């Protein structure tokens, strides 16, 4: 029962989560020196050799990637790794930032209390990633320049920090083309599969059943970001970013296949490892189309053909040449390293690579029936309709007779 409540609250809370993720990082005393810690968590002395009965590396179990590590390095940080003390201080500061959202009288407080519902990240096991950014290449920890963009554009397209922009609609610094073009494609009745609510100007308020019309976020369910509608979470695709809450994963392996259950919004990734080709490129799943293979101790997963509507935040405006290569390398009983390389020659001047650890947590994972329990959407839309009705009546009453 609790979980269903959380699901509902969670869906409603995504907007708040975005706010948390985007908060500008504060400088940390003493972090400017680039003292490289010798224990870079990613390279253990002895390789893990656990195998499944099929003889492939065993990645099975319950895992989390929960952390405050941002995708791109904050501008006031110059080194690649924190010391453990600096990390502890950074985690504490970010936890405090999250808690601040629930000050009585703030907007966030109306939604829910982070601490009370266990939704702030510090209440789940953190991975203790000493890296100051997930991005390890380019070495400056920033996204590479966009193709055709003005040279120095630090920070890339907004939305990057602390888990990335979730909601889609308009968060990214519009490489206008993508969202807009898709939005304009199909004329009346919607058709816009693009995320950007602001993109397709002439459509009727609220859009069609396929969404994408103009107007206010609360004109229709189709104008609400896909995360809040339980359609997609950035903890599943295009790369598995730490979600703000329920950051739990379960990996299962069977003959010729790896399955990843993402608790947040109940996403299931099925990765065949039996050398079969991708599905036809006309098939565009929300989570993209993945195939995998084993390279030594590493599961290598290549994903292409994403549904364009998944591609929000830093991925907004990417092309059909987007390819993500993930590498899962078990490093110990307690952890594996998750490395991802993102390529799209039409979008970035070079590929970029990031890395984060996953660590073990206790199972089992319970059913996150997000959509089924999403009372928040109906309640929000109803409330806005009520307000509009009240305003219309007030306006009518105020009219001179």
């Amino acid at each position, binding site marked *: 029962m609790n979980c269903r409540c959380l699901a509902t609250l969670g869906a409603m809370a995504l907007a708040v989560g975005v706010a948390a993720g985007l908060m500008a990082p504060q400088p940390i005393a003493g972090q400017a020196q680039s003292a490289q810690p010798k224990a870079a968590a990613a390279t253990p002395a002895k390789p893990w050799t656990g195998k499944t009965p099929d003889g492939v590396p065993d990645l099975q179990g319950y895992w989390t990637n929960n952390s405050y590590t941002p995708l791109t390095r904050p501008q006031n940080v110059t080194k690649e790794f924190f010391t453990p003390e600096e990390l502890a201080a950074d985690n504490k500061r970010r936890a405090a930032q999250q808690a601040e959202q629930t000050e009585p009288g703030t907007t966030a407080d109306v939604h829910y209390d982070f601490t009370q519902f266990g939704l702030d990240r510090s209440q789940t096991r953190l991975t203790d990633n000493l890296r100051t950014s997930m991005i390890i290449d380019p070495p400056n920890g920033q996204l590479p320049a966009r193709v055709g963009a003005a040279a120095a554009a630090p920070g890339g397209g907004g939305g990057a920090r602390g888990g990335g922009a979730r909601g889609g609609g308009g968060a990214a610094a519009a490489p206008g083309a993508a969202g807009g073009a898709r939005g304009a494609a199909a004329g009346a009745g919607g058709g816009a599969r693009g995320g950007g609510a602001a993109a397709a100007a002439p459509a009727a308020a609220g859009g069609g059943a396929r969404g994408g019309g103009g107007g206010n976020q609360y004109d229709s369910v*189709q104008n609400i970001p896909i995360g809040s509608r339980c359609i997609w979470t950035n903890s599943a695709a295009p790369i598995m970013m730490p979600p703000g809450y329920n950051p739990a994963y379960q990996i299962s*392996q069977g003959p010729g296949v790896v399955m990843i259950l993402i608790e947040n919004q109940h996403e299931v990734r099925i990765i065949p490892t039996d050398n079969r080709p991708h599905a036809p490129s006309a098939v565009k799943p929300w989570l993209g189309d993945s195939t995998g293979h084993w390279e030594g101790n590493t599961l290598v997963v290549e994903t292409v053909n994403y549904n364009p509507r998944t591609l929000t935040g830093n991925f907004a405006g990417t092309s059909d040449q987007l390819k993500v290569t993930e590498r899962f390398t078990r490093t110990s009983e307690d952890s594996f390293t998750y490395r991802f390389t993102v390529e799209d020659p039409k979008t970035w001047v070079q590929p970029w690579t990031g890395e984060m650890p996953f660590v073990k947590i206790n199972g089992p994972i319970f059913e996150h029936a997000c*959509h089924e329990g999403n009372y928040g959407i109906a309640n929000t839309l109803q409330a806005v309709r009520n307000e509009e009705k009240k305003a219309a009546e007030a306006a009518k009453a105020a009219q001179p007779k």
Partner: protein
Amino acid sequence: MRSRLWTIPLIVATACTVMLVEVVLHGQARGAAQTAPAYRAPRTADGKPNLSGIWQSMNEANWNIEPHSADFPRILAMGAADAMPPGAGIVDGGTIPYLPAALTKRKENYDKRATREGDPEIRCYLPGVPRAMYQNMPFQIIQGTDYIMMAFQYAGALRTIYMKPTPGPADSWMGWSNGKWEGETLVIDTKDFNGLAWFDRVGNFASDKLHVVERITASSPDHLDYEATIEDPQTFSRPWKISFPLYRRKEANARLLEFKCVEFSEEVIYGHLRKVPLN
């Protein structure tokens, strides 16, 4: 006359022998069915029958699990394309043994089946068990040692079968499943349902007291025999059974594709709350 008299005992004796042989053979066959079926599935690396793969039912149970004639579409505008195909049903004996009050509720379900409060499938809600197993979309078995996953194309539904029995923490749509091997057969015991799922599009249902015991046995490289005993003292007067075969998807590069149906259901669920109604 004499010779005829002589033949009678012979005929009787022969008949008895035939009957005896028949009884013995038949008895053997029956015994065999219980202990060692004719087909032995290939083994996984840990020695269990390998049920991995992409499977799908081929019947009309998702429309109505009881035997039924063809019928009108739920939405008349859909014409023959949404008309109900006829089906012989998957219920042993043909009729679900509802208690009287439950039969009334089934009728209510039927009447509202095509509305926002009707069939959960219309709203893209999780299908529950056993419906997920015959929903006319493929599902994939990912067979590990400690847990066996069943991933369903419809709504991205998932079942975790715990092979080390684990108590269910709370009620859910898909229930909580513990599994064990009985020779060639995977036996799955599922309960802790939330009672909100339907069995089909005509409103057959159970309460949150539903208890399903499934038996899945490979009968050839490309077939699984599926059988489930369904029990719910709040809804049915006695336990009853369903059974049907599952077929392997044989296409080259068969894959479980994605049917995330949330957005297809949103206009039905939230359309009345639009600022500007769809015309």
